[in-house]
């Protein structure tokens, strides 16, 4: 089992390497000069001298190979550079905002799983009944409704109906849980709805497919109670692909959060990314892309390992 884990971790490496390389070169392929663009958008005076001075400050005058070297080296040591915009180390900028985004993501995941698994299963078991149609419409709506719009609607209704708006400043959970939840439950719901929709659809199709399998017929032929057939035989097999989807969508959640954090004025990673792009702070952009990719790859790794625990066919040896 240990070698299985090590092998899976090893598979991560080329992907991360590739992302690092791609990110590095992507941002140096920009037409026009990155520095010039940045200075111009800052409104500062742009002369050859200032541009050159800025380039030296950022280490952009060095040969490409050296830059790449220090980029890769920095990745390993955790030094992601200094933000062109705020002047603070990137790792600090990320650190401050990470717990907020992470909390919203985890809450959204919990909401999603708690809603989606029972709904998806029931929808599959009672296929083509009104329950199924209702769930299917619910899930397709979840895919259709942009989460940032949903967020806006939530805030709007809170305002007009309850005359209340969520707190603006972030308090960590351990310091004041009520305050924390009253701020973060709403964005969690906004992105969680879509998350739930995706998972529910996966659960539904997975359960339907499993119910068609031969071993379900065998179980019935053995005289197993129908409820046992569903729970013990069908569900356990159906959950395997669902686990994969829960994991993948968790990584995709960041995409939804990028926009939703704007709506709720949350000072999270997503918002940071948008700010960095609009301000052409390429150091920050570069580092954030790397960070987000890392999150994605690690999530995949966790899903793979979990799959290895759940599905004996994937485990090596016997």
């Amino acid at each position, binding site marked *: 089992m240990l070698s299985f884990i090590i092998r899976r971790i090893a598979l991560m490496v*080329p*992907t*991360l390497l*590739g*992302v690092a390389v*791609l990110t590095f070169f*992507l*941002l140096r*392929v*920009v*037409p026009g000069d990155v520095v010039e663009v940045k200075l111009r958008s800052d409104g500062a005076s742009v002369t050859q001298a200032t541009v050159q001075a800025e380039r030296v400050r950022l280490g952009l005058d060095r040969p490409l190979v050296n830059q790449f070297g220090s980029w890769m080296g920095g990745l390993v040591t955790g030094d992601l550079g200094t933000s062109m915009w705020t002047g603070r180390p990137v790792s600090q900028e990320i650190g401050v905002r990470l717990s907020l985004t992470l909390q919203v993501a985890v809450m959204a995941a919990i909401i999603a799983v708690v809603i989606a698994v029972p709904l998806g299963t029931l929808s599959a078991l009672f296929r083509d009944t009104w329950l199924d*149609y209702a769930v*299917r419409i619910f899930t*397709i*709506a979840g*895919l*259709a*409704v*942009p989460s*940032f*719009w949903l967020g*806006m*609607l939530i805030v*709007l209704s809170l*305002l*007009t109906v309850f005359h209340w708006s969520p707190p603006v400043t972030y308090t960590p959970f351990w310091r004041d849980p009520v305050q924390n939840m009253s701020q973060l439950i709403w964005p969690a719901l906004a992105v969680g709805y879509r998350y739930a929709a995706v998972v529910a659809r996966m659960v539904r199709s997975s359960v339907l497919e499993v119910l*068609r399998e031969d071993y379900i017929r065998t179980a019935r032929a053995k005289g197993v109670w129908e409820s046992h057939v569903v729970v013990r035989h069908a569900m356990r097999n159906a959950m395997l692909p669902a686990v994969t989807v829960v994991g993948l969508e968790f*990584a*995709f959640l*960041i*995409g939804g959060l*990028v*926009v939703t954090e*704007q709506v709720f004025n949350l000072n999270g990673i997503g918002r940071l*990314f*948008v700010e960095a*792009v*609009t301000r*052409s702070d390429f150091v920050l*952009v570069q580092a954030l*892309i790397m960070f*987000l*990719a890392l999150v*994605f*790859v690690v999530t995949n790794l966790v899903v793979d390992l979990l799959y290895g625990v759940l599905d004996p066919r994937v485990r090596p040896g016997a």
Partner: protein
Amino acid sequence: MSATIAGLARSGPGAFGRFARGAGRFARQQPLGTLGLLVILLMAAAALGADLVSPYDPEAADFAAMLAPPSPDHILGTDSFGRDILTRLLFGARTALTIGLASSFLGCAAGGLLGLTAAYWGGRVDMLLQQLVDIILAFPIIVLALVVVALVGRNTVAGIDLNLIAAIAVPIVPRAERVIRAAALGVRAMPYIDAARAGGYGDGYIILRHMAPNVMAPFLVLLSAYVAQAILLEASLSFLGLGVTEPKPAWGLMLSGDSANFYQEAPWMILFPGLAISLAVFAFNLFGDSLRDWLDPKFRT
């Protein structure tokens, strides 16, 4: 067993007759999907006939009628510039549908071709391609689109931002590649592909003539699913100010900027554009879902 029963019960008319019957059967068996299709067609009609339907100019400001609630003059109200919201929605449909269809088609076609190639060659070519796709997939969709937009800027031709289309197509490519590759691997294992190879035909010919038509079903489903995704993505990008920009009408754009400031006083400013986005995505997803359900268990009783 069921296949034999259905097979025994099947008969065969000519090609066009089959298509018409198929369409009729689809309408009967997939009511939700047909509904989605009708909504899509309606939207397309509205988009094409936008200037016929509405008397207002979507971009002209009219400060006298600022922030007006829905009324007979302005059925869906006006925004902070006094522009009629319904008109902007209709013209926005053009943007949404054009960008959605173009990006999805571009992304799915490119991804599909890559997937077919990877599945056909297998071995090292496939492994290499998979690794590349893995790398690109590590970037979240919106991050990738954002980065591309930020990098290449704007390139507007005939009122349509081609670079935006490309930026939205880029993250679609690897996802389409994955799906089509999975389907193509199944086709590749079929004996008729081996028969074609044993017949001495060229590899490119086999890919295009024998493999591609047999992944049409998942390709069509993918296409409709990603039109929905592309519309959402365009809305998100415009919302962030990195997609379509003022004063052009785009649904996502209508939700940002001043709307954010004024929506307490004029909730219709955000209500209707959001509904439009949701409706479009909803319709494409409904249709794509039904297409998949209809094409897939064709031989199951």
